[in-house]
């Protein structure tokens, strides 16, 4: 169980959080303009990296805020935490 430094509450146990999958996949502004393939790309395709991954997390049992983290999936080390809308740190 790792510790996550919620940008709003500070360091808390993983059990307080809910994982929300890959970060920086924006919902298309005009879905009706998209082909089936383009829509499917947004809907289904996610990376599953062994290594540094950008992820969304929600402090579900805390402040309920969503934010992003950069996590090395091979050892669970969290390299960075940043708020929604903020620029991701350079890889």
């Amino acid at each position, binding site marked *: *169980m790792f510790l996550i430094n919620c940008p709003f509450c500070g360091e808390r146990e993983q059990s307080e959080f809910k994982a929300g999958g890959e970060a920086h996949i924006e919902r298309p502004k005009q879905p009706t303009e998209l082909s089936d393939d383009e*829509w499917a790309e947004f809907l289904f395709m996610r990376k599953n990296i062994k290594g540094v991954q950008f992820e969304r997390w929600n402090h579900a049992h805390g402040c309920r805020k969503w934010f992003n983290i950069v996590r090395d999936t091979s050892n669970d080390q969290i390299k960075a935490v940043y708020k929604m809308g903020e620029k991701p740190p350079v890889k």
Partner: protein
Amino acid sequence: MSKNLRFKSSKQVDETYRISFKFNNKTYYGYKGDTLASALLANDIHLVGRSFKYHRPRGIMTAGSEEPNAIIQLHDNTSRTEPNVRATEIEIYEGLVASSQNCWPSVNFDIGGINNILSPILPAGFYYKTFMWPKSFWEKYEYFIRKSAGLGKSPKEADPDIYEHKYIHCDVLIIGAGISGIMAAKISAKNGLKTLLVDEKSFLGGSTIYDNSEFSKINNQITSSWLEKEINEISKLENLEIKTRTSVAAFHGYNFLLARENLTDHLPINQRENKIRHRLLKIRAKKVISATGAIERPLIFDNNDRPGILLSSAIKKYIDLYGVACGENNILFTNNDTAYETALSMVQRGIKVNAIIDNREEIDSKLSYEAEKNNIRIFKGYTVVDTYGYKRINGLSIMELSKDGQKVIGKKIRLSCDSLGVSGGWTPAVHLFTQSGGKLKFREDDQVFIPNKYPSDQLSIGSCNGDFSLEEITTNTVSSVKKFLNVNNTDYKTFEIITGINKSKRNIWLLPSDKILGKTKSFVDFQNDATAKDIKLALREGFRSIEHVKRYTTTGMGTDQGKLGNMHALGIISETAGTKMGEHGTTTFRPPYTPLTFGTIVGRNVGEFFDIIRRTPIHDWHVENNAKFENVGQWKRAWYYPKANENMHQAVQRESKAARDCAGILDASTLGKIDIQGTDASEFLNRVYTNAWSKLAIGKCRYGLMLNEDGMVYDDGVTTRLDENHYIMTTTTGGAANVLGKLEDYLQTEWPELDVYLSSVTDHYATISVCGPHSKKIVSKVIPDLDFSDEKFPHMSFKNTKIGQVKCRVMRISFTGEQSYEINIQSNYGKSVWEKCMEEGKDFNITPYGTETMHLLRAEKGFIIVGQDTDATMTPIDLQMDWIVSKKKYDFIGKRSLYRSDTIKDDRKQLVGLLTENPEEVLEEGAQIVADIKKSPIEMLGHVTSSYYSPNLNKSIALGVVKGGKKMIGQKLIIPMENKNINVTVADPVFLDKEGERLNAKL
């Protein structure tokens, strides 16, 4: 018992305190401080169990948690009995009852022992190879295999003991209170760090605490005396907490560790009442120091598993710590110097050492000279080739090793003994380190794996780090701990060390024999009966990865996780395959280090505390009125209210009829309620629901369907516009938390520009739904000030009002198809308003109904229940709910997915009604629906999702999903059941009052 195996004045045992215990139904005596193993050995009992596969007699082999053989069944009652308890760890107490496991009818005569004779036909992988073919026979084999396999018996009743969990936060956690752990604790605590020191044993000091040899000194003091003073000193330190009988089970990432503190297992039974038995410590440490020590290796030779064969260090521990000799005529077999320490401990106590067999040709240490001085025969360059004695070793034969150590030469010499101590050198206990994700490296000099890369802020010290000599331990511990903790000051200056040990060692993983390998039984994993032959067989059959060899041969897969033999398995693999150690990987040690009981794992979360129970404000009334409850998520919901002798069916039929004929009342408080406010609230609802919301007038209610982005139905419920920028949304009971989470997700991440705020108010309101043709009369009496006329208060609208002084909201909405009012009032008034409704409804036969009747009533109307009639593969189109999907809205969650090539297919499963040919026949929910039962394989068209006997229609009704069902209205289908095929006709899912006239029904 004529033998004298117990000595006076030992370190651990209190000879003034005698304790009686039972082992295999016989009473024995030991002393306070004894483990079950030391007490049994003092009674000259070595044979304690049978091995897993061949049922060979096995004895106590070690003196610690690495024990593979002496695992016993503790307690004889059915609630507390515990299998796989290590006799080497359990401290005896008055009234202890233990027995051997894995043997029948008794440990001395075991029928399964036939497997030992059959063993040539029971090689590794035997079960896999033999019993997996033909496949259909597995069921038959399984019964016999399961019957003869298995270690011990599990308890049959609920565990009566108390367990708890506790969080601990500290600066430094030190695992292991041997010499290096004690020194680290002193350095850490004296530098002001909040320190926790844990050890699995009942005493501090590890193996050094009984090191009384003249040949081992620190600063001119006998090592054990020096350490005793250290322990004395640290026990007074304020910021040091010491926990004994506490074993670390798991070392996770981020320095999160689980440890079990054993609080009562050593106490007499009558002193345990109302005390916590085990405490699971959840430790968060800023820094972790592992000082977990090392485990002595056995040696791998033919018949190396007989009772009476122990690790040499275990024999020493039994002598020095417990005052117990393991035999009267001892032989030691070693490849290094440590066995000589054991020999000298025996000499000191006057125990006969018949001989020392040493693999090495040259030995040059103070200890060996001292042994020779004491007239102990030393066979240099020799190996044991066989042992004798079935239930107890009575002798062995030895032969000379060839120069390269690959063969034996010369004549066989036979020696007699009643105990054999073996020492194959030491293996650092790196289990916890590797659990935490640490990487090992192989040290060629002495053939050990030691910590290499630390995955977190942690350090390994002492022998678990490969520092075996007293010099290395003391010096390296101080310097590395200082650096690790970033401190400068310690009480330790220089160490003057005297030691009799020389580091030399002759490592031979599998000792040669005069027999061919196929004729030997050289055990590598004692608990799982895996031999060197098995490992070589696995390699011959093409297995290479250690993880595969391990599974094929079951090496290291017992309750001891192969703490003794794993290194030999690796060694034999690399020797046979001609590769380097570690090239095939090392096996992964998984938590727990030693087994945990379920009680420890669940702690207080048992019985009614197993999960959170949510009760509505009206719950007590339901209980008082004989409701049966069903669990909906964490909620307890009234299911039905049986009267007198009614069964569930009768109660539900009565309730359902009353709700339509007169009046029904339902506790709907569990429905999720989300308060939505903000200037963009309407726009927000437009985006999350499939239908349009902007034009909903203030004071009106609307049903909404929420999809996932993939177009599948996610949740539904009625949302009411309370004000211009204020809505209250209801969700399904089970979906409430997830819906709120999903809405927050969209608000925070996709649409942060929207001015909308969400709050869960589920628990703030009690919701009472009164339905039926008399409902209006009843609520008019409950709230006399409110105008309930259809003109002023039509269907799908809401009113703010008051009951007495208490504000409440009344919604006229219906999930039953009847005229229906929902009163929402502050929770703590819920029960009294409910009682008032009951009182005012008495003359109208108001009938409380539960979830089962609610489900039946809505099914008559063809209303779906998300999660029952849908399963995350149903679109609104599949549900025949096209009417709720806005064509005009540019976008909403899931819209684009509704015309993906897959979702527009005609042959998707669609929701339909099903009517049975025989109106009395009620279908089973979940039953498959087919068209042609002659076809093979039968094509499954769908399944029944909801099914009831409708008392209002006097026939059986059902909902189901059927491929292309929409176009099949009127068509006949078949529900094949175990004993019969049921004929059904596809129908419209709305069975009752399609026109909705009952919503305004007047009586």
